[in-house]
């Protein structure tokens, strides 16, 4: 089965920043993503205890390389300063590139 190389962008951030991220994705015409709640620890301390609003969320986006740089740049610029957030990019192979 032929597989095609694309990128997977994974963002782990506080749950209240999820809206901002999905907004940014939308501005770059990306509507496919997967999200789930996680706990975590980092520079801004332990997250996931206490109120639900203080949990983290992971947002995973399969996308073509072309859009990646702009999106990473916009997230870094608008969210890194004020939110608990970490992002990374990995190489993955998919069956149907036309979906992304």
């Amino acid at each position: 089965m032929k597989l095609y190389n694309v990128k997977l962008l994974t963002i782990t951030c506080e749950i209240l920043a999820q809206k901002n991220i999905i907004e940014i994705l939308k501005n770059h015409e990306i509507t496919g993503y997967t999200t789930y709640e996680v706990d975590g620890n980092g520079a801004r301390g332990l997250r996931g205890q206490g109120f639900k609003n203080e949990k983290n969320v992971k947002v995973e986006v399969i996308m073509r390389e072309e859009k990646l740089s702009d999106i990473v740049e916009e997230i870094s610029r608008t969210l890194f300063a004020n939110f608990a957030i970490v992002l990374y990019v990995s190489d993955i192979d998919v069956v149907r590139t036309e979906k992304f």
Partner: protein
Amino acid sequence: MDILQLIQSNLLTPIILFFLFGIIAARIKSDLKIPEAISEFLPIYLLAAIGLHGGIEMRNTGFENMLIPMLVAIGLSLLFTLNHYQILRRLGKFNIFDSYALASTYGAVGAVTFSVGLSFLKNQGVSSEGFLAAILAVLEPVAFILAIFLTNMTVSKQIKAKKKYFTSDDTSDIEIGIQGAKTKLSQVLHESITGKAIVILLGSIVIGYIIGEDGFGSIKIVFDEMFTGAIVIFMIEMGIIAGQRLDDIKKVGIFLTAFAVIMPTFNGIIGVLVATAMGLSLGGAVMFGLLLASASFIAAPAVLRHAIPQAKPSLYITSALGITFPYNIIVLLPIMFTISSIVHTGEGSIDLFDYIIKDWI
């Protein structure tokens, strides 16, 4: 019964004891935790119960006499928010963002505090006006909207000012820091008004008003009789969360700690007196005072994190939940009750301030 006695007897109610228990459980690093689904559901349940109760009361008593107290509450809430800002910015030397965030956290209201207040009154055998639930609902977004509006104004001014100096394209750095503040007010307004707390509260008030005492019969056991038991369970979790944050109180600093105790006391007592002057009942005046005294620690982060992302949530959540909430339900509530009792046994508003001076100061 004097204040100290009342504080003591209040301290020994299940609600307060389970809250303190939660704090202790967190301090000894127990793994005790109310599952997330339960602690997310309980505020919805509590607000539904408060709303239904308020709506049914309003059906009995009418709601014409609600208008003035509501407008006064809104006015006071706005005034207090501005006052908080001045104190925090001038005396406390907090930055604009933290000042506005804290100002509105304390200008806003706490639904959990309100629940505890209702239970406290029930325990004292005193009732309160049903329309206070409606004031709770209306007051929720008021302080936030003011604070966000003012933040945005300030930030816009700053941007303009800075642009004069640079007039280059290289202002990106400044903009990064203040980008978040440019949140459109309309969006925050929508978010505040459609926030789950307001929606369930208003909805339940309307439904309570429609169904009245009769229609309530079949659900009374769930939405009335189980109320205090449900608060107790919720207070365990609130205690745990407050306990986990106790270490953060050091970061909060002495100024904010003092603010978190003095400000609610001031706001609350003003509230009791004004409510009494407007003719609210003994219990109603206490609840009115509590509305103004309370700080928001559930709704606040959800709104402020989007609207003023530069503000540190560790400041406003910690002071509201870790200091003001326990102070309000343990100490201030009995104080306000005593004051309200005193001014309500007086012969009317003329003697009002006499009483206060004689008995309280």
